[in-house]
């Protein structure tokens, strides 16, 4: 009798425990938009931003569940002190471009995941004292938190374009190991952004990382950096040389200390190579007979 009682008691206890475990899952599944917004606000997300997204989502005909799906990654990022504005920007962009919610969701998940990976390496790098001095040097207008967020965004985009995290880490470490006097925060941001756009992209990432590092140390600013992919790609087309050879030639020029503007201009002009035009006989003639071209 006692055994039967104990069995029944244990069964009830197990069922109770199971019920307790199920409660939060059930509660989460039934999260309302209001609950989600409360959590977002609790994590410090501006309420007006959420309302703005909600209104635009409604205007585009998104369901409540779809709205919650696009809000969820931003809340998770806010909870991990990641730049959740990336999600909002992508959502606004997607809504403006008419991208269906089901196509937006995986992109947002990917941003959330890559931002997390990017933040790990950026935060480690920013702990270095020389980086702290670089950010606080004051010649750029970006504050430390903003610079961190922008670097995480840039790193996240690079990872999304298959740039290896190890190469990103090495690039950042090489930047801080070297002379940072001529580097501006915006130039560094641009350098990370262009990594995947240089000739051969991710497959030449190590070589490209060295190239942007050298360009940064030579005083390339953000605007110069952004012109670099097109300039190198055109130089490669014009010279018909492998990307590595063009990159090598570019680095040789940097080592000689030429200003970025001139280097880019020459690459665009395709002046590397060329040569004298085909020879056209001058057509000398005079009145003496017997001479070629003569009368």
């Amino acid at each position, binding site marked *: 009798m006692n055994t039967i009682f104990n069995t029944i008691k244990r069964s009830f206890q197990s069922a109770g425990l199971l019920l307790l475990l199920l409660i939060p899952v059930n509660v989460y599944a039934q999260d309302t938009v209001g609950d989600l917004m409360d959590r977002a606000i609790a994590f410090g997300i501006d309420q007006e931003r959420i309302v703005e997204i909600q209104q635009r989502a409604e205007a585009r005909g998104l369901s409540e569940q779809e709205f919650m799906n696009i809000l969820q990654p931003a809340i998770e990022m806010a909870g991990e002190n990641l730049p959740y504005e990336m999600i*909002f*920007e*992508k959502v606004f*962009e*997607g809504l*403006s*471009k008419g*991208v269906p919610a089901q*196509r937006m969701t995986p*992109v947002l998940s990917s941003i959330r995941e890559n931002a997390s990976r990017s933040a790990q390496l950026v935060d480690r790098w920013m702990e270095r004292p020389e980086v702290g001095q670089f950010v606080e040097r004051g010649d*750029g*207008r*970006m504050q430390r938190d*903003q610079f961190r967020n922008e670097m995480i*965004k*840039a790193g996240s*985009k690079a990872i*999304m*374009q298959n740039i290896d995290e190890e190469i990103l880490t090495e690039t950042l470490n090489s930047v801080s190991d070297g002379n940072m006097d001529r580097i501006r925060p*915006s130039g560094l*941001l641009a350098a990370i*952004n*262009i990594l995947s*756009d240089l000739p051969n992209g991710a497959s030449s990432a190590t070589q490209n990382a060295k190239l942007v590092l050298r360009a940064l140390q030579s005083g390339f600013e*953000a*605007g110069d950096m*952004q*012109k670099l992919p*097109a300039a190198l790609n*055109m130089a490669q087309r014009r010279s*018909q*040389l492998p990307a590595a*050879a*063009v990159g*090598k*030639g570019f680095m*040789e020029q940097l080592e*000689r200390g*030429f200003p970025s*503007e*001139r*280097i880019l201009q*020459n690459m665009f002009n395709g002046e*590397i*190579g060329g*040569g*004298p035009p*085909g*020879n*056209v*006989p*001058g*057509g*000398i*003639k*005079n009145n003496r*007979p*017997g*001479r070629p071209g003569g*009368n």
Partner: protein
Amino acid sequence: MKKWMILLIGLLFIPIDVFSQDWDALLFLDGRTGYTSNTYLNPMLSEWSRENTTGYATLTPIGNIFLSKGQFSVDLTSGGAYSQFTDERDAWSSLFILLNSNYRINERWGLGVETGGSSYSMQSDRSVYWVQPVLSFSPSLFTRVNLKAGSSFRKLNFEDQADASGFDQFNNYALELETWPTFRWQLKVGVFGDLNNPAESLGARASSDINLHRNWDINLRTGIERYRFQIMTEGGGGGGFPPGGNPGNQTTTTEEADILYRISAGVKYRINSILEASVSTDYLNYYSTVTEESVSDVHASIGFRVTLFNGSRHTDEANVELRQNAKQTILLNLKYNGEGHLYILGDFNDWQKPGISLVKQRRNRYAAQLSLDSGAYEYKILLVEGDAEKWLELSEDTFTVNDGFGGENGLIIID
């Protein structure tokens, strides 16, 4: 001969169609006015005439297109020149086409063909065609050596002097070196001559282009050209006169060489991305080894060059140029050929349509000024035509990032 010209042009276009994958095109108008004591000094006239010292004005539209696919590339240049003179001579006009094709065998070696033709209409009609295979060697990215050998053909036609008309073939060779000793200095040197008489016809030229400061360039050129001839003179018949002179029916052969020395200097100033001004001076000395005649000629000119088109594949794409000033504002200039209103929108305005309007500056140029906080912003250009909206693709020269949705966004980075 015109049929040949048409055929040549037709043949030149065949490989372009086959090979073209990427292209860059340039169209510009060159204007020049000056004074010359020998039209040979003007590269666009390039015809020996020192009969009248004259002032001139020449207008030269020139187009260039570069096509490439894999290791093949084709560089085609074509244009015309029209010259008016201040003396009584009639205007000169010409057409020309040059086609250089190249196959990159490996990182150091290349093989190609340079070919082209020109046709002049002046006191006489002159047509020149040439073809020469080229072997190139690049010991480094900034140095190249070319070895060329080929033939050129010249046809002269005088309407009123049939006996002066004729057809000549020249077999030429050239060895050229182009290098960049520093990034501001381009140096070209070359030797060239006649394959039938390589040593005695040997000539040389050297040119140097130096960037003095941002928009200022100077160029210096020098060269020596030698033209060696055998002049055959037939003696008079019947024993000749005076007595003791040459026996009758004897041919006298005289060796003669014309030697031309030239030196020139010029300055170019780029006023902006489409307009360039230049001044140049040239000096030429002609010396004949037989007559020991020595004459000097000079040429001075001022000119301008307007770039009418400079673009690449996908001409319907928008080409965006960004410039930041010190007040955290971005000046955006956009080149677009098409109708409708253009707007820019992006992260800076939460992609709110229609966005910030771009103001039309002139025919295909638009501009906007954006005041932004420091950071990076993705953007896109929206074209609105009536009720229709279209996102413009950005050109290859505009830096873009993947938008994650299968498209590309531009990127603004501001300090």
